[in-house]
């Protein structure tokens, strides 16, 4: 296992210059790479190293750093290794290369990210609205989107729940835990 991981890191780092690798316990290896290199590294992983299963594409909203982090998780059936490829895009103008020519199923994730985070994927084939039908507000999964205010404004509320609170606040109140800084900052 360790050898395989090492070999994978070795291969990637020799082949791509601007990449940093991070080895985790278990069968996981992380790579951090610039967004221009993403199609190349994914192609390389798939064609040269046999990582032909795309498990997931995830997105993290780093609001403070004004960036979105996009994580591609690929899996090899021969090596039994998960590889996480991280990249960062600018939050103000989030444009990313579309990789659905490598894996057809990437299309689904990308469409979801497009709707939920507002990330533009170049040349993405997205004929209709996907998860959000008739959505008019900002991308709802961005952290600066205030879901409660939106819901209170848009949906009629039965009287008697005006004092309803965010579940996180209730937890903090009960346990006396401190909120992390960013949560404080963007607290309602």
């Amino acid at each position, binding site marked *: 296992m360790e050898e395989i991981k090492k070999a994978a890191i070795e291969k990637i780092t020799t082949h791509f210059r601007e990449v940093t690798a991070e080895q985790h316990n278990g069968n996981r290896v992380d790579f951090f790479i610039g967004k221009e290199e993403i199609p190349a590294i994914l192609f390389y992983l798939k064609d040269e190293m046999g990582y032909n299963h795309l498990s997931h594409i995830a997105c993290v909203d780093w609001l403070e750093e004004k960036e979105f982090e996009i994580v591609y998780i690929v899996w090899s059936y021969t090596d039994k290794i998960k590889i996480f490829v991280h990249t960062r895009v600018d939050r103000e103008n989030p444009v990313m290369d579309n990789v659905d020519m490598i894996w057809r199923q990437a299309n689904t994730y990308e469409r979801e990210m497009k709707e939920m985070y507002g990330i533009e994927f170049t040349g993405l084939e997205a004929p209709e609205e996907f998860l959000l*039908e*008739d959505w*008019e507000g900002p991308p709802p999964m961005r952290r600066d989107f205030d879901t409660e205010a939106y819901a209170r404004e*848009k949906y*009629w*509320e*039965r009287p008697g*729940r005006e004092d309803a609170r965010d579940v996180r606040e209730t937890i903090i109140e009960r346990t006396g835990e401190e909120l992390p800084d960013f949560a404080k900052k963007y607290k309602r």
Partner: protein
Amino acid sequence: MINDKNSQKIVDIIQNFARQHSIWVLAYGTGCGAIEIPPTMTSRYDAERLGVRGAATPRQADVLLITGYLTTKTLKRVIRVYEQMQDPKYVIGFGSCTINGGMYWDSYNTIKALDRYMPVDVYINGCMPRPESVLSGFAKLQELIQAGKADGAKKYKENLEWYRTNQKKVIPNWHMPEYNW
């Protein structure tokens, strides 16, 4: 003869009796509530002894059972299904999500009160309501039918404008065919 007031009454009584004891349910399994329907129907609780029976399509169903939260997207389908059902028809809201939003009260795409958008005859409280509650909900509906008070569909027709306004508020692109009742 059939227009005679008294005989009309008798016909009404018979019809109400039949409607009361033959409830064909279209279970719109939206949220987690769908999981409560099988135990209700099968041998443990056996709703069939009340005459409750599943229906395959809205055309055949009497009762629309909304089992949980409704996103705006689902609401659109639910309204379509409801309007495709034939009179007399009833709606049972199931679980607290349909009453006041439940745990989805602050979700950006979930409605919080079903009766703003559709006429609800009976609400079944709980998160989740157990099959006993469901049965009691059916029993309540039967009572209402017997008393002739389960007139949600009538209300819907009378106050269609109001319902439509509410519906259109959450479903901005309203392009549905004119439906039938």
